[in-house]
């Protein structure tokens, strides 16, 4: 089974539009939208027969004011600065609490208990070219990496069930835990960058991360014609490091038009230059061993 991760480092370079296009070029494929902070792919792929399940992301410490004697031992032990005195009462900040349970363990009169947070969900559903798994992280929730792991696990289970040999992972921006979770175990990665100084800078960081995981990166320069000079610099940089540039896509307002119509560009304008380039890129990356 091939798991292909679409990443970028920088946000807004076109990962999701490209993932949607790749999804439409496959048959019997499984899509894992791992941008659980801001899942967008379902807006284009419009999954049906959606199955929903709650996800317990973590536990939060809650204090019982009736039994708390205000000794403050928990405040001394908490390393997340989540506990403090407010108006003379020991108070736990829900957003700062990391759920480590140490306060509960050090409390002499058992005034702290842990409460599960289960407002995050993951979903699976069918779409034209296969199945997709996605998730919604409860706003303000931590542990997005754990939810990404869940989406990946479900995607693999579904791929086995429907005998699919390709999973496309639409990854989140950044280089931290949800990205690492999107990347581990993937066979190949497609890095979607743009010809801007910040896009180039972020691409170098994400490639460093990808290579440390022994995953092969393939670079796609999106909107390459917005700055030809930086596009060339990116291509040169990749060439020097023997990193494959799988293709370059022009800036095309039709990509936004397609999105407004809940379609990917290859569905919306299959004969356009942009679509042809995306097809070439997909053939190159998916067939590369």
């Amino acid at each position, binding site marked *: 089974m091939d798991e292909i991760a679409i990443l970028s480092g*920088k946000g807004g370079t076109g990962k999701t539009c490209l993932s949607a296009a790749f999804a439409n070029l496959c048959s019997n494929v499984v899509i894992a939208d791992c941008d659980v902070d*801001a899942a967008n792919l379902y807006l284009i792929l419009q999954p049906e027969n959606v199955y929903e399940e709650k996800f317990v992301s973590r536990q939060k410490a809650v204090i019982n004011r009736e039994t708390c004697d205000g000794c403050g031992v928990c405040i001394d032990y908490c390393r997340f600065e989540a506990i403090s005195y407010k108006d003379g009462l020991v108070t736990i900040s829900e957003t700062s609490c990391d759920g480590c349970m140490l306060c509960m363990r050090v409390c002499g009169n058992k005034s702290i208990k842990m409460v599960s947070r289960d407002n995050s969900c993951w979903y699976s559903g069918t779409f034209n070219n296969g199945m997709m798994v996605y998730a919604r992280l409860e706003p*303000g929730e931590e542990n997005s990496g754990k939810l990404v792991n869940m989406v990946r696990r479900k995607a693999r289970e579904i791929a086995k069930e429907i005998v699919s040999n390709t999973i496309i992972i639409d990854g989140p*921006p*950044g280089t*931290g835990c949800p990205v690492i979770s999107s990347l581990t175990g993937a066979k190949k990665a497609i890095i979607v960058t743009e010809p801007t100084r910040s896009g180039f800078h972020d691409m170098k960081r994400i490639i460093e991360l990808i290579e440390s995981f022994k995953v092969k990166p393939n670079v796609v320069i999106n909107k390459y014609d917005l700055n030809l000079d930086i596009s060339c610099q990116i291509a040169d940089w990749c060439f020097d490091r023997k990193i494959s540039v799988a293709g370059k896509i022009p800036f095309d307002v039709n990509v936004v038009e397609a999105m407004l119509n809940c379609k990917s560009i290859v569905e919306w304008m299959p004969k356009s230059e942009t679509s042809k380039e995306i097809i070439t890129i997909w053939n190159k990356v998916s067939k590369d061993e």
Partner: protein
Amino acid sequence: MKVSLVDCDAEEPNVCEFIEGESLSWSTVKQKIPVIDADKCIFCGRCFEFCNYHAIVFLPPARFIQVVEDLCHDCGACLYACEYGAITEKEKDLGTIKTLNVNKSLKVVEGRANIGVYSPVPVIRQAIESLNGESLTLLDSPPGISCPFIVTVEKADFVVLVTEPTPFGLNDLKLSVATLQQLHKPFGVIVNRAGLGNGEVYEWLKVKSIPLLMEIPFDKEIARIYSEGKLLAEKKQDYQYQFTRLLKKIKHLLPWMK
């Protein structure tokens, strides 16, 4: 007016691609990682039980115990758990904080997480705390709505959300708004690349009574200026005025800032 700009997108810090300055200071962000002394350890498994992050691998029959450093959250539970003095702590580098002097009125602080670090939160926290809060402080936030975003906006008096008028933009904006409402933060919205996409975002803002602070049109000239790491306000006079007006508008929304 004195201004400090903190790059809180520690996973992909970009501010220094746009603004250069003379380096004032440089420091390392560290976290504590437990070290288990196999000679003192009696393999009771208490630290393994206490660790809520699965960061300790414990195989009693093989008398094997090991810390998985990447999973450790630096909570100190294992240290508390061990009754045999077998656990001590060492420091691990998470990233760097760099302070730059740009000119008399502007200072930049960059938080940069090391590649492979799971959570940028300690780096972001330390970058923000490195300032004394005397000046107007701008925090360039990471994307998303999870912990790196929360730790950034938590300290803010006002949040500026930047979106674009597309279905993706609106979807993400709604998530950010829901998060800020939970945190009871005042906020306003800038629509970037106005002219692309559709008008749905404007209708939504109206229905929700959310202030539209500014629009930046979709313009290839602006995209080119951005791509070269140049500043719009420096390249186009009109935008200096526009951004000054934006700051005034925000101050009106926040009476105590006047």
